[in-house]
């Protein structure tokens, strides 16, 4: 089969199993868009801003485990995509971003819509390529998918000059089923000696703790993690990125850890004597002050990325490998020889944890005349049976969602954890809905975040994506306001969203349904009504208590045991 470069791009995507491409056309990618027009296998979703394209592809990837694909033009198309690429990079999400480039003869001449996309994206991609010769196109595409989806996943950008996709030049095309790269061979299987050492250490634990992150979800190892945890009978906490990898309602689950994690999770971390970190990277929002982090613990760390091991916290037993493969090996060993745990010590440990649980650290005022954001999330969880796909933006609403929506399955909780990108939630929700057409999808957001990518409401209309937007509207950048209250003596500098659109009318202007809710008694009814509208996007504008803060909290730089609880006066 002889194809042009543009046709090769599209045919390759089809052969690679890509069903959806999120993109926005422009001069440098016109050849590719023409090839897209002349086929029906790869569906293109036209977004309203390139940032939206990448977030949507990202949401799609997080919800399916398949790589997301975005297509943007040169210059501003590529620069608009950068925030999305960096978001995916920080959370290790497999993405392929195809960016157009000016003709190769013009590269470096400051041509119209020229930007050094490879240079600009370099610090926030796993790898990138510039394909100047159409003959290199197929092998580069194959390498890009291979690199993006294996090892520690991540975004890969392919910059394609316009002449590479020239429709007049046709070359033979064969889809390569395999590829190997001498410079890239991720370790999958864990070292068996290390696995044994880890199991010995685990068996000797008197106060063990499992701390697991997004790597478990990326590795599709939730079932193995759940079995591993339950065979051991040890307490488990998840990071923000790991929520859903272990059932959120299970008795062994002590909640999320970190800056806004539960008291019991953070205290158990601080007091444990053996810590097993699985697919987690000791982020500063988790560790607090590293000097005081898990002061009494021997640490086992399982991760596919050797550079994640001993990066911020020294570990005692590192295991480099794919989480699923390593946990499978560990389970086999565990079941083979029953190691003797100190059951009395474990019993005492659980007693201690249950005592911490009585602090009821997530309490809030349930009798408030104002809508509490926590209450909305609780009701959302009830109405959707804890089984919706939930995306979020960044800020207080993100933390409330993490604390109050109990995720029972992996790939249900989709948020920008590492980069903390406001504007992520709505386009990501569109990607999720595209991947799971019939499933309930909620985007938990705030009046500030939602306005950063609000234009994607039009995309939702064009493709009939019935996302439910849960707008927790407190008229403030809530997390900024909270820090200004605590650390800047209530000087609320530029965090007040004094002017806002009428979100109901705005939703209607885009052809959606808008709802305004300002009484706690109306919350549940509104949610039920919205989710009953299965074929409509509903924008629910909840007017919430502007003074509500996220508790408990570890202030930046403090130890895990130095949590602030909600002050009693807020509970009246």
């Amino acid at each position, binding site marked *: 089969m002889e194809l042009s470069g543009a046709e090769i791009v599209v045919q390759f995507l089809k052969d690679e199993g890509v069903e959806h491409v999120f993109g926005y056309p422009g001069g440098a990618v016109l050849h590719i868009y023409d090839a897209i027009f002349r086929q029906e296998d790869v569906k293109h979703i036209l977004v309203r801003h390139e940032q939206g394209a990448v977030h949507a592809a990202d949401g799609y990837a997080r919800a399916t485990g398949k790589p997301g694909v975005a297509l943007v033009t040169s210059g501003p198309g590529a620069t608009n995509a950068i925030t999305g690429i960096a978001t995916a990079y920080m959370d290790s999400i497999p993405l392929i971003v195809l960016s157009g480039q000016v003709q190769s003869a013009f590269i470096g001449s400051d041509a119209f819509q020229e930007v050094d996309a490879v240079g600009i994206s370099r610090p926030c991609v796993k790898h990138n390529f*510039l394909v100047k010769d159409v003959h290199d196109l197929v092998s580069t595409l194959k390498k890009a998918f291979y690199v993006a989806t294996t090892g520690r996943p991540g975004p890969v950008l392919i910059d394609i000059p316009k002449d590479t996709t020239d429709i007049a030049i046709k070359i033979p095309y064969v889809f390569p089923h395999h590829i190997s*790269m*001498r*410079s890239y061979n991720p370790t999958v299987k864990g070292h068996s000696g290390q696995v044994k050492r880890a199991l010995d250490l685990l068996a000797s634990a008197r106060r063990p703790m499992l701390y697991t992150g997004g790597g478990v979800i990326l590795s599709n190892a939730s079932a193995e993690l759940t079995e591993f945890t339950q065979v051991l009978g040890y307490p488990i906490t998840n990071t923000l990125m790991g929520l859903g990898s272990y059932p959120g309602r299970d008795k062994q689950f002590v909640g999320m850890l970190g800056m806004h994690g539960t008291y019991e999770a953070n205290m158990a971390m601080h007091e444990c004597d053996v810590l097993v970190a699985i697919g987690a990277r000791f982020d500063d929002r988790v560790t607090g002050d590293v000097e005081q982090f898990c002061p009494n613990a021997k640490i086992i760390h399982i991760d596919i990325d*050797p550079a994640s*091991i001993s990066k911020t916290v020294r570990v005692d037993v590192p295991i480099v490998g794919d989480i699923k493969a390593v946990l499978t090996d560990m389970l086999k060993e565990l079941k083979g020889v029953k190691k003797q745990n100190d059951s009395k010590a474990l019993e005492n440990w659980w007693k201690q944890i249950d005592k911490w649980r009585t602090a009821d650290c997530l309490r809030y005022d349930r009798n408030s005349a104002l809508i509490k954001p926590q209450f909305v999330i609780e009701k959302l969880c009830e109405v959707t049976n804890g089984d919706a796909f939930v995306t979020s933006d960044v800020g207080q609403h993100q933390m409330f969602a993490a604390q109050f929506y109990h995720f029972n399955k992996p790939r249900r909780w989709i948020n920008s954890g590492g980069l903390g990108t406001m504007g992520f939630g709505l386009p990501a929700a569109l990607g999720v809905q595209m991947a799971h057409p019939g499933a309930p999808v909620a985007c938990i957001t705030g009046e500030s975040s939602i306005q950063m990518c609000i234009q994607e409401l039009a995309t939702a209309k064009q493709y009939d994506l019935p996302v439910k937007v849960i707008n927790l509207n407190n008229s403030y950048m809530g997390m900024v306001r909270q820090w200004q209250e605590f650390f800047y003596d209530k000087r609320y500098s530029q965090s007040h969203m004094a002017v806002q659109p009428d979100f109901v009318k705005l939703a209607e202007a885009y052809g959606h349904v808008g709802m305004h809710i300002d009484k706690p008694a109306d919350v549940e009814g509104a949610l039920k009504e919205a989710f009953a509208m299965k074929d409509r996007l509903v924008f629910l504008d909840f007017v919430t208590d502007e003074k509500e803060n996220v508790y408990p909290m570890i202030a930046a730089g403090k130890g895990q045991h130095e949590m602030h609880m909600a002050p009693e006066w807020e509970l009246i």
Partner: protein
Amino acid sequence: MRHIISLLMENEAGALSRVAGLFSARGYNIESLTVAPTEDSTLSRMTLVTIGSDEIVEQITKQLNKLIDIVKLADITEGEHLERELMLLKVLANTAEQREEVKRMTDIFRGRVIDVMDATFTIEITGNGHKLDAFIEAMRQSDIIETVRSGATGISRGSKCLHV
């Protein structure tokens, strides 16, 4: 601690910028960096000299290993190794006395005068960094016009080697 890290990488456009970018993005020190193609034209060999604690250098090698274009790397300072750097040094050599002194000093350091002009000598000298520093110190009495150093390169001793 000073470490010499040798890298074999794909001879691709942009590979050098990935390494340099990694060091600036993560705040690592580069004391010197040299790179050139090897006998295998698809591979380049880079020698990096960096200074950092054991933890930092461990991170540096891990992060370098993560770069897709890097095929293999070794911290050659972990074992016995040879280190060489080339320096070219141009000095004023106007008078017979000056010329004699420069030539004498160059011989002592086993350097070579490789260019002779009316008023200047250019000297080539190789060695480790300390030797080159010492030579510059010894030449202080002469008028040094210009120096250029290649940065360190190195190789492990014996059977230990970095190849694909």
